[in-house]
């Protein structure tokens, strides 16, 4: 037995039951040493430790502000009840999110409408809980957890001084048996004559967190691996583009609603970017004028924007590979990157998302090849029941969408768009080969693989969350 253990045990045998502080005084050992000895004695059954802890909650300034005034969701509900409200840049996003979560409001086509629950809301549970906390009264646990999660309350756990008493195992103070195996024991061979005391293997030893990838990166890499395994070459392209590569080159009419300021981020610095590929610009101009019977304005093509899809990378690569494709082998490319949509941020929408786009360029490629490739991919990511259906995008014809049944939502979710690229585009890009193209949003998919309330949770990025997050599912 170690000397510290002997000292503690001796003290206990004298007075049966003592607090750790009393043991410190009695033995003259530091608290660390007493605790170490007590742990060892308790794991061999010679001592018993009673711990108690108490939890107290404190409201944050933000919460106090809400208590004195209104919660943002209460304000939002009030104004929704009092008259027509639309979601705009002045709408309080936090209020909107919680009012929606509380099922007080619905949003349809941008208009906020109070629900029956919202109209009949008289006393807000969260408010009641915070009030109880501030008065030191008991509050509902679910509400407390919510308040902590929202940063409205903090939790403090205080440990009282542990009480130690004699255990059932009657160890003689002089009984031998070593705790830690030391370097000295190993090198001198003393271990042969030393009894290594058995530990209680069930005692909690805490948890070490490994450094890890971000779940979004992990998920992106998983998608990347599938395309790599399927023989695709990874490419990338600019995120800041002239409207030409994001829209014109994809045969999106210059007056198409998707090009409105409400949907696309345009830049004020730089305002314009030159389309360096004049040949492509002129060919696309004549494609547009013929196809859409509308004037094509090359000034509009210059407007600098944040790409809204990685399909811009695809069409740039159709151009790049136009002259390099041989008859014997199709070119297979994919690209993963950020895309940007000018949306109000809420739990379902982020202004920046990830997309994966792919193309195959070659002689004799057909819709049947596209369907095969997409089905193969869906199998690989664990969605073998995904369904293909016709749809429309200005840059493909025939066009299709991939839908899958989302069990959480109880409805079908659109996952990807695809099709045979329009000849008006491929010819303008300088190829007479068939081009098969597709694109899909990655955030839609990751929601299946990790439990999060809101897409923005992925970017909260505190170490606690990064450490404690679950493994990604399929």
């Amino acid at each position, binding site marked *: 037995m170690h000397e510290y253990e002997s000292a503690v045990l001796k003290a206990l045998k004298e007075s049966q039951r003592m607090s750790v502080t009393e043991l410190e005084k009695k033995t003259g050992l530091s608290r660390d040493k007493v605790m170490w000895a007590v742990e060892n004695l308790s794991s061999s059954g010679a001592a018993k430790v009673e711990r108690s802890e108490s939890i107290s909650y404190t409201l944050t300034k933000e919460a106090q502000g809400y208590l004195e005034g209104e919660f943002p969701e209460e304000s939002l509900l009030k104004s929704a009840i009092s008259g027509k409200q639309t979601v705009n840049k002045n709408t309080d996003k936090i209020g909107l999110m919680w009012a929606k979560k509380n099922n007080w409001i619905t949003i349809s086509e941008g208009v906020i409408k109070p629900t029956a629950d919202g109209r009949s809301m008289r006393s807000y549970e969260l408010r009641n809980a915070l009030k109880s906390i501030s008065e030191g009264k008991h509050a509902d646990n679910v509400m407390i957890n919510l308040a902590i999660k929202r940063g409205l309350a903090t939790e403090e756990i205080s440990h009282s001084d542990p009480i130690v008493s004699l255990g059932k195992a009657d160890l003689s103070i002089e009984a031998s048996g070593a705790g830690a195996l030391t370097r000295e024991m190993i090198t001198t061979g003393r271990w042969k004559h030393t009894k290594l005391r058995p530990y209680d293997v069930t005692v909690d030893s805490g948890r070490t967190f490994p450094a890890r990838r971000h779940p979004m990166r992990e998920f992106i890499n998983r998608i990347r691996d599938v395309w790599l395994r399927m023989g695709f070459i990874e490419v990338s392209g600019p995120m800041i583009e002239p409207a030409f590569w994001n829209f014109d080159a994809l045969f999106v009419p210059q007056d198409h609603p998707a090009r409105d300021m409400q949907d696309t981020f*345009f830049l004020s610095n730089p305002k314009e970017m030159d389309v360096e590929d004049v040949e492509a610009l002129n060919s696309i101009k004549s494609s547009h004028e013929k196809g859409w019977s509308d004037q094509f304005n090359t000034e509009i093509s210059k407007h600098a924007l944040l790409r809204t899809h990685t399909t811009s990378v695809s069409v740039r690569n159709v151009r790049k590979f136009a002259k390099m494709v041989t008859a014997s082998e199709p070119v297979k490319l994919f690209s993963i990157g950020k895309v940007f949509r000018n949306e109000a941020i809420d739990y379902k929408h982020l202004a920046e998302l990830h997309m994966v786009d792919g193309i195959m360029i070659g002689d004799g490629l057909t819709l049947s090849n596209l369907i095969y490739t997409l089905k193969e991919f869906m199998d690989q990511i664990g969605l073998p029941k995904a369904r293909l259906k016709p749809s429309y995008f200005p840059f493909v014809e025939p066009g299709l969408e991939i839908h899958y049944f989302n069990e959480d939502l109880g409805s079908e979710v659109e996952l990807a768009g695809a099709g045979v690229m329009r000849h008006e585009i491929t010819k303008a890009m300088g190829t007479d080969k068939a081009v098969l193209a597709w694109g899909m949003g990655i955030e839609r998919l990751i929601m299946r693989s990790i439990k999060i309330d809101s897409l923005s949770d992925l970017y909260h990025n505190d170490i606690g969350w990064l450490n404690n997050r679950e493994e990604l599912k399929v």
Partner: protein
Amino acid sequence: MPTITLSMTRLKESGATEDEIKSMIDRIGMSVESTDKESITIEFTPNRMDLMDTTGMIRALKLFSGKRRPKDKEYTLKQDPALRINVDRTISKTMPQISGIVVRNIDLSGSKADDLIAFTEKLSATFGRKRRKMSVGLHDLDMVKGEVTYAAETHGSMVPLGATSSQDYTTIVNTHEKGIEFGALLDKKRYPVLKAGETTIALIPILNSDTTKVTSRTRNLFIDITGTYPAINQAARMIACSMIDAGADVYPCIVSKRKDQPTPDMSVRIINLRRSDVERTLGIEIDDERIMALAGRMGYVTAKYGRSIMVMIPQYRADVISSQDIVEDIAISYGYENIKPQPVFGNSIGKQEEINEFVEKLSLLLIGMGFTESMGMYITTEKDEFESMGENFDEKKSVVLANSKSGSILRSSLMPSVLATISASAHDPMPQNIFEAGHVFSVRDTKVYEIMMACFASCGPKADFASIKSHLVGLLKPLGNPDISFKDSSSERMIKGRQAKVYVNNKEIGVIGEVNPMVLNNFKIEEPVSIAEINIGSLMAAL
């Protein structure tokens, strides 16, 4: 995508059951969003504008289910023009052009009048680009008295739709709901108006008069379609076809400018299709007869013409540009599910992009040293990006968004993002090690730079210059044992005398140092942070 709600009761006129209707709409290429007893809401794709119309949808359902066959010349107008629109000299070139049709013996009972109004409104909003390109006005023909003139007036008055008394144009544009919504389309000095005799019956493209209001009792219609060519003609054709399908007699209108022009132009476009177009695009084997039968189910009249097939594009279709569009319709009619998936020929080997492969290698080394990866947003604000770092924002050097709902600029460094993560982790145990790899953006001489960077930081009582330096050396040395050197640097972000520029094989690749406590205060970080930021492209080039 826009949605449209159609009457289920009326769609059943196609002879199909509710389930069949839902399934067919899905197979034609739209998504059924919801249904109830009375109605069906569809997310419609903007190519098939003709299907926003209840009559158009019934037609498509009948054709698709084989209950109806497309016929040659079925959409022919009556010979004699029924109305003349005199275009006054006051109408300038920048004002909307006009086209018109007259419809007699139309049944608008029940919900049919509302359905027609809903269709033309949606058509003006979508196909007409919120009336910028095209706008439709419906009038009760029997209330159109006197000669019809299209003229521009500086002032005048009209009884707006739904009102009881006459209001002057300026008041309508400034106070009426539609005036406020669409007034921006006018120059407001001269109002393009449609007059019947002396009465103004429409303020183009804002709204119509109450005088010629259409109700479920209306039997005869005058429809004006204004905007730019060819959109107005395409819309007029779509509406004319719908009226003919509804059993009415449709007459052309004469638009009289310098000379008389009958409108709309109902001529049929023909596209020649070869069997190989279908086979080569879809990857199926098919004969001409089958192609013609499939095309028929999508509304095309076809005829053999030598070795190819003549395909007549019905006048209600404004979206058919080339044979590729017809091939899609044939694929829809064939059923995508019936196309046999076929593997792509050739053996290709996947390959990562070089820079991403390199970033993966760095990430693995950083994880090995105990750094956890975080990922931040690319869109940020001047405050988070510069103010918090104790720096001034220079709008010439940043990528600035012109119209943002959530931020204002693109980030130009990874440091703020990594520090924000540490700040958010205040309650987690120390030490903390974080890294991020991603793009930053800058503008120099109006040229945009998108640069891949990696940033890693330690936070805790022992996070000093030496510790971050040892990690940096630990990261770089495995990359081929390069020469690494350091020179003093002087950024406000870091403590004076405890920061350095990093050189690999004598090329600058990044910076390291201890974060300035002023910056730590801004981020509400209570422990020291040492940090490194490296430019991946420069590092790759230096190795």
